C-alpha cells in the first residue's frame, strides 16, 4: 500500500520521504482493459461452472443416477500439475483451430473454477432437508417449480459463496490466462506478475493492490450479501 504512493523510500525511514500518486494515475489509465478482461473471463467461467454444477447435482437428487463418478473427473485440473494440464489444453485448442481468445481463456478458467463451485454446492445439496421438497410437491409444485422456488432460495447462501469463490479463483489464475491467451489477453493478474520483474517497487505495489482488491471484494460479498438479502428472514441465517 505504502510502496504504491512513495517514490523515494530509504532504509531507516518508516514512511516514504517522497510521495506521489503518479503510479496510481498511470495505472488507472492502463488497468481498464485488464480489468474488463478479468471480469468478463471470471463471469463467463463462473456462470458456466454454476450451471453445470447445478445441473449435475439436481439430476443426482431427482433420480438414482449417480453423477458422483463424473464428478471425480472434475478434480483432475487440481491434481495434475497446471503447466502440463494447461499446455495440453492449449495444444488441443490449437489442433481444433481455436485461436487464443477471451472465450478460450474463459473455457480454461471454467475447468479450474468448476471443482470449487461444485464442491461448495455439493455440501449444500447433501445437507438439504428433503422434507422441504416433499412438502412443496404435496402443495402442488412440480420438480421445476420446487427447484426455482424452494431449492435455489434455500441454497442462496451456498450459491453466493460458490459464485464469489469461483470469481476470486478465476481472477487470481495466472497460467491458464497466460498460456491459453498466448499472452494477448492481459488481466489484472498477468499484468501484476509481468510488472514484478520491472523492479519498480511503486509500480509493483500499485498493481499488487489492484490485483488482490477484486478477490478480497468477492470474499467480503460472500460474507455480507446473504445477511443483506435475508435481513428480514431470520430463519435463513
Amino acid at each position, binding site marked *: 500500500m505504502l510502496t504504491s504512493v512513495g517514490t523515494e523510500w530509504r532504509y531507516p525511514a518508516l514512511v516514504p520521504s517522497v510521495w506521489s500518486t503518479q503510479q496510481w494515475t498511470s495505472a488507472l489509465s492502463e488497468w481498464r482493459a485488464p480489468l474488463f478482461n478479468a471480469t468478463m473471463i471470471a463471469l463467463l467461467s463462473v456462470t458456466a461452472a454454476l450451471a453445470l454444477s447445478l445441473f449435475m447435482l439436481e439430476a443426482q437428487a431427482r433420480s*438414482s443416477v449417480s453423477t458422483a463418478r463424473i464428478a471425480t473427473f472434475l478434480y483432475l485440473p487440481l491434481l495434475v500439475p497446471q503447466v502440463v494440464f494447461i499446455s495440453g489444453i492449449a495444444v488441443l485448442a490449437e489442433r481444433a483451430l481455436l485461436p487464443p481468445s477471451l472465450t478460450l481463456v474463459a473455457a480454461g478458467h471454467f475447468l479450474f473454477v468448476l471443482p470449487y463451485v461444485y464442491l461448495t454446492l455439493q455440501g449444500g445439496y447433501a445437507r438439504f432437508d428433503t*422434507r*422441504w421438497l*416433499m*412438502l*412443496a*410437491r*404435496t*402443495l*402442488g*409444485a*412440480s420438480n421445476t417449480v420446487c427447484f426455482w*422456488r*424452494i431449492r435455489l*432460495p*434455500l441454497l*442462496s447462501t451456498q450459491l453466493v459463496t460458490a459464485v464469489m469463490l469461483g470469481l476470486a479463483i478465476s481472477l487470481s489464475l495466472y497460467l491458464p490466462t497466460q498460456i491459453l491467451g498466448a499472452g494477448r489477453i492481459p488481466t489484472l493478474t498477468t499484468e501484476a506478475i509481468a510488472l514484478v520483474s520491472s523492479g519498480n517497487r511503486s509500480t509493483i505495489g500499485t498493481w499488487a493492490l489492484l490485483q488482490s482488491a477484486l478477490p478480497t471484494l468477492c470474499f467480503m460479498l460472500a460474507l455480507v450479501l446473504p445477511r443483506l438479502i*435475508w435481513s*428480514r*428472514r*431470520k*430463519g*435463513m441465517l
Partner: protein
Amino acid sequence: MNTGLELQDVSLSVGSRQLLSLSCTIAPGEVMTVMGASGTGKSTLLAFIAGFLGDAFTAEGKISLEGKALNQVPAEQRRIGLLFQDALLFPHLSVADNLKFGLVRTAGESRKDREDRVEQALEAISLGGFGERDPASLSGGQQSRISLMRLLLSEPQAILLDEPFSNLDMQLRGEIRALTFDSIRAANIPALLVTHDLADAQAAGGKILAL
C-alpha cells in the same frame, strides 16, 4: 360419492425384508392411526402413499383415492397433503407467501381476491394481520397453525400426518391436535396418522392399526 382413501394389499419391503403389509379403507372425515416403534415402516408407508418412495424400497399393492388409482400419479398431482413433526414454514417466504404457495387457484380470481382469501384464512386461526411477518418470528403454536392452514388452503383430498404433534409441549399439543382433527372432519377428507403416542391415536377417534 367420496369413497375415501383405499389401500389394497399394500406390501412394502427393503431388499428381501418385508416391512409391512396391509389393506384398509379410510372413510372421508375419518382419521385412521398407524402405530408402531421406529423402523417398522410407518414413514415408508406415508412416503409410498404420497408418492416419494425411495429406490431402496419395493412396493406392491394399489392406492386409490375417491376410486382413482394413484400409483402412477406424480406426487404434486395426487392431492395428498402432508403434515410433519415440524411446522416447516418456508423460511424465505413471508407468512402470507407461505399460505399462497399451495393456494388452489380458482377461475377468474384476481390477485386481490387471493390476498383476501389468505387474510381470511389467517383470521380463522386468530392470526389476522400476520401476513407480512417473518415465520421465524412466530411462536411454535402459531407456526403449527399456519402450517395446518397452508395445507388446508391447498385443498387436499386426503391428509397424511407424520407424528405432527410430537414436538409440541403438552398444552399446545391438545390445542393443535383438536384444531387439526376438527379441520379434517370439517373438510370431510380421509386422513392417516402415524404416531407412537396412544393419546394421539385415541384423540383421532378412528381405526387404530398396530404394526
